[in-house]
């Protein structure tokens, strides 16, 4: 008997909704991602100009003390004074990836990349038996050499109006999924950014979101829901780096150059950023209709917590910038409404794509 030619079912691409799953995987990865930055500085940054003003054979110990202050280390050997001025700068930068879900308070860390640098910048002076400078030397880390002595320091504030489009809605809405309950929505908002350091921004703001209601059939009834309208007040942050940082990440001196700069005006050109927000969400009643007749509410208005995580790209020129970003948003489950429907929903999740402008002052 001839063997049946068994036809294999057509192979489906592993992620047939690849863009959405890719975004979700990225969001999950980001949710477990932590950036750690530790810095220990002991002593005062060395006064390089004062060091350069010292002249071998001419400068006396007393003059050197007046220009440089008290030395951090003193030794006396064979009639000569050896003095050192020291500034220690320890830095540790790392990225950790943990599972975003804690089990009994434990979150397993499955990957970590870190770099540690322990620099001791120093000025060493030797004074002869007559108390005159015999030898001077300076050791500075590369990051200190490349940064200007008089780098401008200060804070900056940003006004950031934004708009998003949300094509993907996720989660169980009770009767149906959220993607069947509402149509893709829109959001607009305004954030105030506070930048105390060149690559880190604290964000405070709010936004309004609206998702048009859709129709579905339930138990032979044609159900129509009203729009979902939300207000959010949010607090979060943004960590941004120039794109070439990722090619220089293994060079610790480049990382230090980035961190040691206090000049917020360096925030120019292209940047890649990660963004996280925690917010409070106020939703309005979502009415439901059966066959055009009002039938109570699908969700009742209430207040709940929500969070968002995402990444984006920004380009700045002067005081003006534009950015585009993708966000994953998660809002705690809405209150059940009174309509004769299964309105016991899970968390409302959505993927938002958008962007905006920023103005610094």
């Amino acid at each position, binding site marked *: 008997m001839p063997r049946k030619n068994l036809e294999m079912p057509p192979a489906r691409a592993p992620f047939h909704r690849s863009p959405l799953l890719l975004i979700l995987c990225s969001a999950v990865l980001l949710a477990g991602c932590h950036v750690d930055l530790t810095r220990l500085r002991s002593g005062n*940054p060395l006064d390089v100009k004062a060091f350069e003003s010292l002249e071998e054979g001419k400068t006396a110990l007393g003059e050197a003390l007046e220009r440089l202050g008290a030395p951090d280390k003193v030794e006396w050997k064979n*009639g000569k004074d050896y003095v050192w001025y020291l500034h220690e700068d320890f830095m540790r930068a790392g990225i950790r990836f943990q599972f975003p879900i804690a089990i009994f308070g434990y979150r397993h860390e499955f990957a970590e990349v870190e770099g540690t640098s322990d620099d001791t910048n120093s000025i060493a002076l030797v004074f002869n038996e007559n108390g005159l400078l015999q030898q001077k030397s300076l050791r500075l880390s590369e990051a200190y050499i490349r940064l200007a002595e008089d780098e401008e320091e200060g804070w900056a504030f940003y006004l950031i109006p934004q708009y998003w489009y949300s094509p993907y809605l996720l989660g169980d809405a009770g009767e149906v999924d959220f993607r069947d309950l509402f149509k893709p929505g829109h959001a607009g908002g305004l954030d105030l950014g506070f930048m105390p350091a060149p690559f880190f921004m604290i964000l405070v703001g709010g936004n309004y979101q609206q998702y048009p209601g859709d129709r579905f059939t339930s138990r032979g009834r044609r159900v129509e829901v009203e729009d979902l309208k939300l207000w959010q007040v949010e607090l979060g942050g943004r960590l941004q780096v120039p794109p070439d940082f990722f090619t220089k990440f293994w060079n610790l001196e480049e990382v230090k150059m980035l961190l040691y700069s206090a000049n917020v005006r360096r925030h120019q050109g292209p940047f890649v950023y990660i963004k996280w927000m925690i917010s*409070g969400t106020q939703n309005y009643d979502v009415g439901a209709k059966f066959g055009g007749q009002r039938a109570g509410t699908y969700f009742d208005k209430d207040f709940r917590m929500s969070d968002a995580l995402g990444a984006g790209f920004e380009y700045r020129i002067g005081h003006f910038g534009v950015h585009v970003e993708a966000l994953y948003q998660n809002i705690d489950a809405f209150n059940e409404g009174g309509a004769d429907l299964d309105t016991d929903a899970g968390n409302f999740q959505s993927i938002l794509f958008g962007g905006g402008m920023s103005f610094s002052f």
Partner: protein
Amino acid sequence: MSLVKHLLLLTLALPLLSGCLIFGRRTTDQPIDAGAVAQLKAGMSKNEVTGKLGAPHEIIFSNKEHDPLREHAYVYEYKNDAGTALFFFVVNFGNLDSKRDRVVVFFDEAGKVAYVGQSLKGGEASFGFPFGK
């Protein structure tokens, strides 16, 4: 609860929910009196120095062959450490800024003050982010 009350509660609660901010300070010994340091003059005796600044934290001895225990310099020091930690959802920052008051009094062969070096920076230790020089 009205919308206004909700928003007010959120404004107060969000900073608590979104992360953690820690400030800490540690000092070692006492700040050095700038006025007392200003009174140190060349030619003063060791007793006069200790009378104004107290017992030194460290004595630098000479290692001359014929006079190995000659006191070459007195060192006075005060340390001030300011630590800041910010745990903010995705980023964790830690910063420790350590500054010192330090005075080194050099003596000549006769045991009299020759030079005084002072750096009184202990009060400049500050809380902050791990950025900048």
